[in-house]
């Protein structure tokens, strides 16, 4: 094989090859090629994003663990801690939607329980294309069944999520999985840095097969026509085995039998072993022939690159190994010693006694290339002095659109209550669970609104934090910390990189002002097919805390005769989703003052906790008319007298609050709010005298849309 062919096969470029030769003092040999191929891939090394991720706001008094570990850990006080993270599985899901989504859920769960946290909740952020685009309904169906099939069987409830639709995702869907785990008072946090010279390296879980070989490199490449041949490396997930792994790992951790542990995710045994060694600043001797195999024809290179699921690597004191094996045996899993920790900082790989490679792990992990991809300083191209809105009749057909209709077809397929901790499920604006020991409430919500990103990447990035923060605050939750999943197109294109840098700036500033550090995350680049990039989508996962589960405001109007209050912190006006759907230009006016919005958000939270309003809702896509109709879906509806201008575009930010008549003074004075109407139980939504709707009709529209199209599958 010529050098060029080899570089193509292992997906390395000339510069990277030169770097490798410099670091090794010679050309790479044998399986070293495979090691560099996987650990220096975009997916594992973050080479295009690292320099920007370093600038992220990560500090805070509650942060116990952050980047550098499998997931971030936050201190909730009272001995309780949580670990959470979000990850993408976009490319595999496009190829095989069920297994791609399923293994995405499996992977993120492992990142959580590898730290010793019992998984408590799942959430997912999905972006699909037009439902009439080729394969799209198959993709939606497969992804939803895959998430449900894995999450339900493994026994972790899916309690919230977000689903977006836009043609820019036609060739690249996004499947981001979020998981959160819990540590009680007596539970220890387990890290992945290998330590303990002379300790055993133990492989636990499923046997190794051919799954996903070269998978890490695949995620770093865009799709092109003729990609059918990128099979057959589909990774198959087994949620039953994962459940056994969760129980057995937590058991051995509680028994004090484990020193450090990491899951085998992207780049399988390679990434876990080299990363554990590099973080611990130690070396490892690994005997690849001891790895339990499902397929005896696997070569050492195959074994190193296999992405067979449901496997963990852990470090254990030699005298504890027998007890450890007993626990795994009880649960029906393999636990095999495959190596030892040593002082010399080299990872040495052996095959039946022959040493195949010996490399300083830092070269592969710490010293992976870091690129400074070209970008331009952000230029808000869509900013205008003023936006002209066409005068149009409000018709609320938006309730029936894919973007505006109910997602119940999706979440009715997820077990939302296993664990018996769920207080608010997917049908609510945020997910809420009860913390097992203290009984306090934890709120989870996902963020990022692609249509806002399309208006402006900087604002969209800020909105990815501010919007979910407001959603948490208006239910009385204090936003604590953030995880993110940055989904972008080809970073080698300046326009994409510029959006990456700009949105990250907006996102980061918002985290600083909201005092919500980013504690974990993931980057997915190359979401591009045939030259078309996706909408830049920096999705986020926010977690908030509240002392009590009582008096959490509802999402819909509760009582007739209440006052409907509109509270604004008006900074920016977007032309909005309605205009976008009508094919109009995306425009905005105003300047987003993140500091001011953050202060307003904090004030909102305080007011909600003090005054316990009946219901609250943020005004989002499609603006005020849509928000009022969503709140009117039960037996109580709005009776307002607003002028047409109020319904044009989307203001950042507005919030609706339903309060008892006697309480409205306080809100008006403290929050600079105004009463826009009253609630009634007439079955009619009144926006103004000329614009009225039968609630039964609205319900029909809302229950249709997505459900009608997918229900027919």
């Amino acid at each position, binding site marked *: 094989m010529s050098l060029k062919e080899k570089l193509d096969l292992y997906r390395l470029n000339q510069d990277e090859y030169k770097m490798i030769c410099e670091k090794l003092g010679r050309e790479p040999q044998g399986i070293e090629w495979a090691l560099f191929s996987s650990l220096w891939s975009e997916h594992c090394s973050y080479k295009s994003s690292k320099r920007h991720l370093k600038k992220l706001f990560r500090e805070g008094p509650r942060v116990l663990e952050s980047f550098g570990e499998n997931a971030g850990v936050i201190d909730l006080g009272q001995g309780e801690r949580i670990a959470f993270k979000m990850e993408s599985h976009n490319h595999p899901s496009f190829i095989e939607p069920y297994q791609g989504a399923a293994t995405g859920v499996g992977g993120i769960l492992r990142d959580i329980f590898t730290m010793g946290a019992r998984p408590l909740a799942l959430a997912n952020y999905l972006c699909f294309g037009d439902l009439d685009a080729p394969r799209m309904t198959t993709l939606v169906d497969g992804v939803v069944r895959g998430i449900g099939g894995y999450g339900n069987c493994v026994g972790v409830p899916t309690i919230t999520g977000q689903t977006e639709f836009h043609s820019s995702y036609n060739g690249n869907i996004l499947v981001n999985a979020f998981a959160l785990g819990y540590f009680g008072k007596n539970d220890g946090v387990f890290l992945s840095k290998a330590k303990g010279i002379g300790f055993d390296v133990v492989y636990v879980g499923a046997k190794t097969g051919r799954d996903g070989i070269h998978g890490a490199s695949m995620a770093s490449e865009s799709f092109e026509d003729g990609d059918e041949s990128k099979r057959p490396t589909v990774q198959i997930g087994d949620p039953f085995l994962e459940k056994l792994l969760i129980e057995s790992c937590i058991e051995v951790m509680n028994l004090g039998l484990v020193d450090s542990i990491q899951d085998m995710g992207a780049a399988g045994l390679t990434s876990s072993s080299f990363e554990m060694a590099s973080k611990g600043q130690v070396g490892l001797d690994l005997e690849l022939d001891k790895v339990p195999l499902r397929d005896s024809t696997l070569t050492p290179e195959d074994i190193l690159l296999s992405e067979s699921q449901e496997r963990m690597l852990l470090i254990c004191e030699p005298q504890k190994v027998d007890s450890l094996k007993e626990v795994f045996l009880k649960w029906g899993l393999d636990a095999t010693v495959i190596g030892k920790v040593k002082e010399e900082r080299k990872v040495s790989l052996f095959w039946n006694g022959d040493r195949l490679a010996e490399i300083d792990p830092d070269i592969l992990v710490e010293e992976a290339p870091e690129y400074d991809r070209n970008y331009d300083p952000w230029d808000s191209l869509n900013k205008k002095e003023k936006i002209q809105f066409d005068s149009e009749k409000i018709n609320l057909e938006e309730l029936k659109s894919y973007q505006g209709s109910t997602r119940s077809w999706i979440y009715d397929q997820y077990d939302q209550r*296993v664990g018996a901790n769920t207080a608010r499920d997917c049908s609510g604006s945020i997910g809420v669970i009860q913390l097992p020991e203290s009984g306090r409430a934890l709120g989870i919500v996902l963020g990022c609104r692609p249509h806002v990103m399309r208006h402006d990447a900087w604002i969209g990035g800020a909105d990815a934090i501010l919007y979910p923060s407001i959603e948490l605050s208006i239910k009385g939750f204090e936003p604590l910390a953030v995880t993110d999943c940055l989904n972008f197109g080809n970073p080698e294109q300046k326009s994409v990189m510029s959006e990456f840098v700009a949105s990250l700036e907006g996102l980061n500033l918002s985290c600083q002002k909201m005092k919500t550090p980013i504690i974990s995350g993931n980057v997915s680049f190359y979401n591009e097919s045939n030259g078309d990039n996706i909408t830049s989508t920096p999705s986020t996962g926010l977690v908030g805390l509240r002392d009590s589960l009582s008096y959490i405001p509802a999402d819909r109007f509760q009582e007739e005769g209440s006052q409907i209050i509109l509270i604004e912190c008006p900074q920016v006006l977007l032309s909005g989703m309605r205009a976008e759907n009508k094919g109009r230009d995306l425009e905005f006016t105003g300047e987003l003052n993140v500091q001011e919005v953050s202060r307003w958000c904090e004030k909102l939270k305080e007011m909600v906790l003090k005054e316990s309003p009946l219901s609250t809702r943020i005004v989002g896509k499609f603006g005020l008319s849509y928000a009022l109709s969503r709140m009117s879906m039960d037996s109580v509806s709005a009776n307002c007298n607003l002028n047409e201008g109020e319904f044009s575009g989307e203001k950042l930010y507005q919030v609706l609050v339903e309060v008892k008549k006697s309480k409205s003074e306080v809100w008006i004075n403290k929050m600079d709010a105004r009463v826009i109407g009253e609630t009634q139980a007439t079955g009619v939504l009144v926006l103004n005298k000329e614009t009225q709707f039968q609630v039964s009709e609205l319900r029909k529209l809302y229950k249709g849309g997505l459900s009608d199209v997918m229900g027919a599958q």
Partner: protein
Amino acid sequence: MSRVGVLRFPGTNCDLDVFRAIEDLGHEACWIWYANPFEEREYDSYVIPGGFSFGDYLRAGAMAAQSPAMDSLKKAVKKGAPVIGICNGFQILCEAGLLPGALVRNEKLRFIDRWVELVDQNKEIYSLPIAHGEGRFYIEEDGLKELRDKDQIWLTYKDNPNGSISDIAGIKVNSVSALMPHPERAMKDWMGGTDGRRFFECL
């Protein structure tokens, strides 16, 4: 106060939920690991929780039904010990022959998670959540007739979500009862309802 044995199989998910519910009601909950036989006199009653024992592979409950703990349970049932099977527990009891009929894939072939209204033998209505992919109860003509004649149909769905024959959501044969909905998920107001509390009464 009774000693309630809670069975646990590889893949059982609702064990901790059921354990908490039983203790909340004032009983003493004890674990029974599937691989170990047990002495019937150790426990006053039993609960088989929901979940995906053995991944629901082959057929839901098929492999769990063939375990040492289930052999012991069969002996206990012969002596009249009360048993409640919830969701996967219902499936396991049918596979083990301790209840008639079988649970097969929901009519629309999808997993369903929602709150449903149930009607009991006294025509009273309760709200409980369901979450299952194989909740459609099937039994042959003769078996159905026997259930009706002996008043063994414990619960029916007000609005059948999965195509169960005769809208059956739960049955009670002698000391063995089972239901597809999850009472342990309706124990507190913040869970969405408290109708679940009464379903553990027979313990």
